[in-house]
């Protein structure tokens, strides 16, 4: 593959995903400057291994896989990010602060969400463990399928499903808490 072809792939297939990668990087690292470093590292690795990429296939998933691995294998090991203990994987039925069982469905009404802003949503997502926020971002924000997420995160599809289910429930509980702090309530409780 010559330099012109590499440049073409890079510009047409990789660079178009830069904003999506930066958004994901920010939620992985939780810092703007670290997110930019991670994007840079991801693109450098993509360039280095560009000949392993099948042109015209899923460039976005390929880049997200590189970023996820770069974060786990290199970035976090360098001590740039304090490692959180991920108890969600081990404790399936633990109740959260609101006493909501994490293995049951959290019913969060549309009316309660309507007045929440992006800041609250970002805070709520960033408060989740790395594995939980990863699946929410990949599925709900980036629109990847379960199979694609399984490949990016290197876990079975069943694990993706269960992580996503629990992550959404935790996110709903957190957002419900924010909404209630702002004075919004589930009107069905009082009727």
């Amino acid at each position, binding site marked *: 593959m010559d*330099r012109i072809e590499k440049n073409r792939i890079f510009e047409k297939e990789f660079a178009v995903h830069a904003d999506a990668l930066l958004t994901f990087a920010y939620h992985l690292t939780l810092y703007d400057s670290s*997110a930019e470093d991670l994007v840079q590292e991801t693109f*450098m690795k993509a360039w280095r291994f560009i000949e392993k990429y099948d042109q015209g296939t899923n460039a976005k998933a390929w880049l997200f896989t590189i970023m996820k691995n770069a974060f786990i294998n290199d970035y976090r090991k360098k001590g740039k990010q304090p490692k959180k203990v991920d108890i969600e994987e081990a404790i399936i039925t633990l109740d959260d602060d609101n006493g909501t069982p994490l293995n049951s*469905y959290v*019913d969060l009404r549309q009316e309660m969400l309507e007045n929440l802003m992006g800041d609250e949503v970002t805070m709520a997502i960033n408060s989740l463990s790395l594995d939980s926020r990863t699946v929410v*971002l990949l599925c709900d*924000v980036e629109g990847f399928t379960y199979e694609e997420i399984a490949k990016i995160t290197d876990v079975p599809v069943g694990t993706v*499903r269960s992580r996503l289910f629990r992550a959404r429930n935790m996110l709903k509980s957190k957002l419900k808490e924010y909404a209630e702090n702002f004075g919004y309530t589930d009107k*069905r409780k009082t009727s």
Partner: protein
Amino acid sequence: MGDQPIQQSLADKISLFVDDSLSKEDKMQFISEMQNDPAISDMVAQEKYFKNFIKNKVPRRKVSPNLIEGIMRNIDSTS
């Protein structure tokens, strides 16, 4: 339904439906269940709303031209 937990299998099916991950056969069956049960249909609507809400509320970060230029410079220097 209020805050009452529902059966996880149903909640799981709702997630799979909303994420378009049910098989064709299971999807048809679930659509039929929804049509016969307004409570399920309501839960599906809430779950779809939640998914779209998250997508729309997470701000898309914009890569600065400086970052792209820096990446291109690094690529040039390593090639």
